[in-house]
């Protein structure tokens, strides 16, 4: 399949495709920077390719090489369910490339992030400004010559450069004033939701221009929880990145762990043993349930229905008891390892799961009774926050948000991984794509996750739970204490890390909010050269402004909640 894509591309652009690759099964093509827009249009429009979804735009800094920067696009086709990695190189002294926003509107934020982190200019971008960092930030932090410990000059009130208290807030200057007049010839009012706001769970700042109660224009500003995930992972070993992946989607951390470890295993070209794969699926589905419970409950809370929120938290506590028993942490799990899991299922786990999950689902039943047919809930959620499915796809939206609009895209079904191809489950789809559909999809997915867990517990095979290659997986603890070779292997693994062969891979898995993808570039050492996490919340939050345009201010809240923007995932 990868070869067919690359052949077609090469046929159409014989002089502009500089190199193609199918390392570890990933179709990858390098093209000339000037032609990127034509190539993008072809990839989207050609009926055999139909790459309608921009998954990711990022860059890699090959310092010391000429040209220095490689811009990497990951694309997906929702009709053919195939992927492509498109790459192009730009030199340091002229780090510009045409923006692909005319082709995929979702590249907007992704290109802003690449500008912010690498300093690559995208010509033709409608609004190229920093997205995570503030405008006064000096430098581009993901460049390899930007030291991790570098300090920035102070800004803000009290600093030498900052505004003093009472001045116009210095960061409100971004949005241009809209020239539209309000009704009765009045001026528009600019309000800010956040970054510290009880209804936005996760720090985000929404600057909205209001005409009365109607939102005329909104700018969603993210990045308040940006902690430098990529830079941190680049400065540590592969095994040290796993606790950091926990903190991406902290509501369902195990799913983030799994994606990362699958990516590293793909770099090695190995697969975990069957028992491990079943355990990973069980743990992942448990985490998914925790996330969906929180999302549904928090939405109810912000619509002033406090009781279903407490029911949801109670259900989540029961789920968390399972996660706790597995790995010792409820939120930050650090459970999955490269080549295995940190520990096998504890004794009595199946019984605990079979006791807790039905109780949690009973809580879900009560929540549904309170919410689904309730007129107030319906009035707030029905018909609110809709965008046509094609537009959502162009934004790169995925997960329950896209499935609520009726698009059949669930990676567990479309590109099965682990043992999802051995279990039966349904993929719920919505019809209108409004907030009510999103709610119903999540509720249905909760029940499907429980179904998957039950099947996996029944099908769980015996056997080793970790890969037996000591160059990849740390030796068993009881053996390290008393055996010479294992002691040495432990020492080498901890001090130098596992060393995947040089290459690059991308692995996308279905996390609670959509596709979480890891793009790893290995240079053969124990530290990743690039560790990119493509997070669904980031792409899902992008269309928020479009969804609430023309709606009332109050409609912002359920729409934002149903997007389920997890701050750690959106801001990395």
């Amino acid at each position, binding site marked *: 399949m990868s070869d067919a894509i690359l052949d077609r591309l090469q046929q159409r652009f014989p002089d502009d495709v500089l190199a193609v690759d199918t390392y570890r099964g990933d179709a990858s093509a390098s093209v000339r920077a000037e032609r990127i827009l034509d190539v993008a249009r072809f990839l989207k429009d050609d009926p055999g390719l139909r790459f309608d979804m921009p998954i990711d735009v990022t860059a890699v800094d090959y310092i010391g090489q000429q040209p220095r920067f490689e811009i990497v696009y990951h694309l997906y086709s929702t009709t053919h369910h195939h992927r492509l990695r498109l790459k192009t190189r730009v030199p340091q002294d002229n780090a510009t490339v045409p923006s692909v926003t005319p082709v995929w509107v979702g590249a907007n934020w992704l290109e802003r992030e690449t500008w912010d982190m690498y300093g690559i200019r995208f010509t033709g971008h409608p609004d190229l400004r920093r997205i995570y960092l503030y405008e006064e930030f000096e430098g581009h932090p993901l460049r390899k010559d930007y030291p991790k410990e570098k300090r920035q000059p102070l800004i803000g009130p009290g600093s030498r450069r900052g505004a003093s208290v009472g001045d116009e807030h210095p960061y409100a200057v971004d949005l241009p004033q809209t020239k539209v007049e309000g009704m009765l010839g009045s001026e528009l009012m600019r309000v800010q939701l956040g970054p510290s706001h009880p209804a936005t769970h996760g720090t985000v700042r929404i600057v909205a221009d209001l005409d009365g109660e109607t939102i005329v224009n909104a700018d969603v500003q993210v990045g308040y929880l940006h902690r430098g995930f990529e830079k941190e992972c680049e400065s540590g070993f592969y095994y040290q990145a796993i606790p950091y992946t926990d903190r991406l989607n902290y509501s369902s951390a195990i799913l983030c762990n799994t994606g990362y470890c699958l990516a590293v295993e793909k770099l090695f070209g190995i697969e975990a043993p069957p028992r491990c794969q079943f355990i990973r699926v069980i743990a992942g589905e448990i985490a998914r349930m925790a996330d969906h419970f929180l999302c549904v409950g928090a939405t109810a809370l912000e619509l002033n229905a406090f009781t279903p929120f407490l029911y949801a938290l109670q259900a989540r506590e029961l789920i968390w008891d399972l996660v706790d028993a597995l790995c010792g942490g409820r939120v930050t799990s650090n459970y999955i390892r490269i080549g295995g899991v940190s520990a096998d299922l504890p004794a009595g786990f199946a019984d605990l799961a079979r006791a807790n999950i039905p109780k949690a689902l009973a809580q879900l039943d009560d929540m549904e009774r309170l919410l689904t047919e309730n007129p107030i809930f319906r009035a707030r959620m029905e018909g609110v926050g809709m965008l046509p499915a094609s537009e959502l796809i162009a934004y790169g939206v995925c997960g329950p948000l896209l499935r609520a609009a009726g698009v059949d895209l669930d990676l567990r079904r479309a590109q099965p991984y682990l043992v999802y191809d051995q279990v039966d489950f349904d993929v719920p789809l919505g019809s209108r794509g409004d907030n009510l559909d999103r709610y119903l999809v999540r509720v249905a997915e909760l029940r499907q996750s429980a179904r998957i867990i039950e099947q996996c517990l029944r099908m769980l095979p015996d056997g080793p739970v970790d890969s037996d290659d000591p160059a990849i997986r740390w030796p068993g603890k009881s053996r390290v204490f008393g055996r010479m*070779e294992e002691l*040495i292997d432990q020492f*080498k693994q901890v001090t130098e890390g596992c060393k995947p062969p040089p290459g690059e891979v991308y692995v996308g898995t279905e996390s609670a909010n959509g596709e979480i993808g890891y793009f790893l570039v290995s240079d053969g050492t124990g530290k990743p050269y690039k560790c990119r996490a493509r997070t669904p919340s980031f792409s899902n939050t992008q269309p928020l402004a479009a969804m609430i345009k023309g709606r009332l201010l109050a409609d912002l809240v359920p729409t934002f909640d149903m997007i389920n923007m997890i701050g750690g995932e959106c801001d990395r």
Partner: protein
Amino acid sequence: MPKITIDGHEIEAPSGAMLLPVALENGVHIPHYCWHPKLSIDGSCRMCQVEVEGSPKLVIACNMPIRDGMVVRTKTPAVENARRGVMELLLVNHPLDCPICDKAGECLLQDYSFAFGSRVARTREPRRKLQKRKDIGPRMILDQERCILCRRCVRFCREVTGTNELGVFNMGDRSVLNVMPEAPLANDYSICTADICPVGALESKDFHHKLRVWFLKKTESVCPSCANGCNVTVHHYRDRVWRMMPRRNDAVNETWMCDHGRLNYQHVNSPDRLRQPLLRRNGHLEPVDWEEAIAAATTQLRRMARAPGGPAIGAVASPHLTNEENFRFAQLWRALNVASVDVAVVVGQKDALLIKAEKAANARGARDMGLLPGPGGVGLPAMLDAAARGQLRVLYVCGPDLWETADRQLLEQAIERLECLIVQDIVRSPLAERAHVVLPSLTFAEKTGTFTNFAGRVQRLRQAIQAPNEQPGDGEIFSRILGQLVEGRPAFEPAAVLQEIAAAIPAYAGLTFERVGPLGYALPSAAAAVPEATA
């Protein structure tokens, strides 16, 4: 030249060479323990076994002379099996000491076991019990259980130092490494045995249980202790120097360095380091800021430069400063027409191996930069005479060597008569205690520059650690003084100053940092070297 093929790659090799060094030089990493480029061939470890076409059994690469047309394979199942077998047998009796052994992180046993060894231990029996933590010399510790009997240390003591302290006693299964009775491992190069020991059997007391090697950052430099200029690697972490190890340079020190030089890094970390300039006020030294100190020194120099009868200034250069710094020093005196300039250097014992008589790395370089008495000027000890007689009013002394080499009485007399004694040193030495202006100096580990060794080889140092509070280096200090006395302050950037040197001094023509390279550059006029001082 004969051609051989290793793993499909054709390689040219000098005839008569052994297969192992040829492979290593061409990037083929054949694991080995007992072979060392500077020691005789032992052939005891059997780790370097490879397949050679035409040979029915595996051969050891260290003792296999190459033949034209030889075909070698290092990655076949037979080779892998042999390596696994050797590793397993070596580990059967190896103690589980990794957590407490200093060698972890640079241990060949760990590296090869992880890369070539078996995945799973097959034995659990208790290991043989031998002596651990055995004090075998003033600077060395031996752990007999860890020894894998490669005999590198035995050959070193026999062939390099000729002192024969170590030997393998008993035979077969009972072999054990030990010092000869009544002969501690005390030769001047004893710590080199810890370098060449592939495991943690021989350890240096200086580094014992100090720090894990994976924290250490490594910077290439030159040893500052004597005129030989052994190439070293400075190992540092968090702006402290933790140890020095020799770097291979076949033209200077092969792969060795003496114990004294190796341990002579403590002064870099000393808590007594001068960090702030001092000025004598009301009879005692007070800390002042840099501007004030430089201004005080400059004032005195300016005054005395205009004395009737010529400048009443004498300068004593330090043989520990780099060529670049000494060049700037020389420029300062030329600008002031000061001709009484000399280098003071401590002279001691030398030996037939590496240790040279001059106990500083750059005395030759200082002389090459022109820091010798000019026409009308006097050198040491005449300079001190002139000072004692009141003819010299200001003396600028760099480094601690003057205190050690000068006649103490004469020196005290000179200091009494001096109007201003400026001392630039790294600690508050006895000479600094008597000074009027004291300027802190930086050590070799904190600067980039070049040294010229006794044989006229220019070698480069790289800065390993950062002095706190952006303390200026010696070159920077000289530049600031020069800038206050002469129009236009020349900034001090070592690479740029080296180019100035290359332009000004014929013997150093064409020299740049790149050209000096990691292994140094022999000056063309090396044969006409300035004779070194002898004891």
